[in-house]
């Protein structure tokens, strides 16, 4: 199989996108550079309004960049739209596409015709995909009667009709319950793993989803990429010390006894567990300069007669990375979200955020 190793699956250079809306132009992307290799599972992670959807629309040829260039497997998104549309597909969260009067099977067949599958091949491919996504029982059910999770599985099957070389997933689990979201994630992973070289670009604001699925992640906010790397690399950026949680049967002298040990940066008492019978335990948060200091701590605890009941290393999350980079959490409003003062020059960061908010709202409708 030739994967054109010289050509990146996605090659974005200095992409900027401005929406000319009243009262002020909205800057949704401000100079994004990005390269995704063939076969990579790449995530764009960011809060509402970050510019993720705008970027995915540009890459799927639905929107022109205001400046900059973007290529999909070497094809230019501005001029070679037909070629790109033949090798890609897309699924968005909360998608209500198609016609409720059709059955699942018919709806998928209709879309297969838009990708040029001969009619008989289309029906066969549809039947295979219906089984693959677990909609066998709903195959003759009308689309209008499907649950949200079933509908998204059907959308996922639609996205695979032409076996895309690159698959764009825009918040694919948006609005799904936990089990439906897990089912969709499993399907995505199974499809990706089945044939080498399949490339996926996922946008999400669910950090655990990005962590679970993606080989590499770009953290996006206000139309800019703030950080890029594998989930582990990103987490290492904020992991300056090793953090452990210890559960001990007793700790004479309290956490202060641990703070004096070499390599220990800090030790705090987390909680005291009492099961009401004889057993009592003490939980301690321990911050070490690095993992090698742990040996000394374990030895010292044995020396003072404490038994370790449990030991767990605390890993930083992608949320910690985001907070470190942006200075606020995903769910927190940014300072720039205040209503614009008509007398001041508009800050593009305000408008970029607002544009994204509207984008996301509409995606839910």
């Amino acid at each position, binding site marked *: *199989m*030739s*994967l*054109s190793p010289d*050509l990146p699956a996605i090659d974005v250079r200095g992409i900027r996108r401005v*929406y*000319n*809306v009243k009262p002020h132009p909205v800057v949704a992307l401000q100079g994004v550079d990005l390269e995704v290799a*063939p076969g990579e599972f790449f995530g764009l992670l960011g809060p509402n309004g970050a510019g993720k959807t705008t970027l995915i*629309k540009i890459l*799927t*040829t*639905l*929107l*022109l960049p205001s400046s900059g260039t973007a290529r999909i*497997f070497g*094809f230019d998104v501005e001029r070679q739209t*037909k*070629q*790109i*549309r*033949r*090798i890609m597909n*897309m699924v*968005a969260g909360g*998608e*209500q*596409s*198609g016609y409720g*009067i*059709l059955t699942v099977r018919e709806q998928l*067949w*209709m*879309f*297969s*015709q*838009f*990708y*040029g*599958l*001969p*009619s008989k091949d289309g029906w066969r*491919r549809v039947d*295979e*995909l219906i*089984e*693959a996504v677990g909609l066998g029982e709903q195959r003759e059910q009308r689309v209008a009667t499907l649950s949200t999770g079933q509908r998204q599985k059907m959308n996922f099957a639609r996205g*695979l009709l*032409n*076996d895309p*070389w690159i698959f764009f997933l825009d918040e694919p689990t948006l609005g799904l319950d936990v089990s439906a979201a897990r089912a969709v994630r499993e399907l995505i992973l*199974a*499809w990706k793993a*089945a*044939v080498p070289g399949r490339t996926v670009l996922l946008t999400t604001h669910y950090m655990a989803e990005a962590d679970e699925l993606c080989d590499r992640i770009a953290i996006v906010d206000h139309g800019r990429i703030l950080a890029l790397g594998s989930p582990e690399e990103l987490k290492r950026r904020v992991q300056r010390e090793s953090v452990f949680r210890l559960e001990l049967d007793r700790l004479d002298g309290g956490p202060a006894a641990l703070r004096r040990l070499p390599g220990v940066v800090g030790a705090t008492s987390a909680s005291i567990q009492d099961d009401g019978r004889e057993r009592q335990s003490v939980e301690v948060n321990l911050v070490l300069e690095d993992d090698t200091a742990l040996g000394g701590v374990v030895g010292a605890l044995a020396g003072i007669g404490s038994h370790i009941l449990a030991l767990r290393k605390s890993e930083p999350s992608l949320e910690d990375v985001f907070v470190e980079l942006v200075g606020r959490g995903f769910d927190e409003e940014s300072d720039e979200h205040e209503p614009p003062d008509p007398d001041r020059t508009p800050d593009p960061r305000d408008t970029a955020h607002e544009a994204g908010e509207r*984008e996301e*709202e*509409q*995606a839910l*409708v």
Partner: protein
Amino acid sequence: MSAAFNYRPTASPQEAAAWTRRQILATDLRAVGGRAYPRVTGMFREKSWVFFEILLPFLATSAFVFVYRALQAPPEYVGFVVLGGAMTAFWLNVIWMMAQQLWWEKSQGNLELYFAAPMNIMAVLFGMAVGGFVMSSTRAVAVLAIATTLYGVSFAIDQWFLLIAVFFLTLAALYGLGMVLAGLFLMWGREAWHLTQLMIEPVYFVSGLNFPVGRLGIVGSLAISLLPLAVGLDAMRQLAFADAAYPLGTPSPEIEALILVGMTVFFLLAARLTLRLLERLARKEGRLSVRWQ
């Protein structure tokens, strides 16, 4: 793991993207069939259309029949109004399910999937037209058959071939106009529903659905030169009631058939141009892809 996920018909993205002319044409033709499918299928699944689209137009037609009879108008006027009643189905289909359709598709999220698919967007419009034609034909035939039987309409047809040709040319021009309107309504956005309303009764009137358009004098002549429904209906009336004393002032059916050919070509080219402009504008302004705009 499902075998469906192992499907990989091409060896590289470059191979997958390189389509032959035959593949492009075949995809466009399949897309026509694919988009026509929901309309044809829907016809059999939603029975309410029998009431709304056969019985109600039939009642409107009947009202004019009774008025003409009360006024002791020539008997062929009953035939004129029955023919007009049958053709109403096509105009309503063009207005509600062609002109307004792209706007609806956009609000449903279908439009961006159409644009993101590799077929020509004109194929989608052709599919809508083919499906709409099948739907409306059944309604038109039903109205025509019931009204003809009930009111004893007798046709006098000398030129069968020309009548059939004029019928299909009328539909081609009508659906071509529908394709142009689909693009324009999408551009005008939220006004689409009002525009649809605006284009029903006035078009009925100037197209002479219930009376020969020649009676409108200069307005009728203008309608014949602009509206496919007016010119097509006028030609069909002349051909279907060849023995009637048809009002003067309108061109012969042959001339009107040529006008329809011109209209068809013009509307199809205009639709293609409109869609191209629309897609370019939409990609530039984000109107297709960002639903809040």
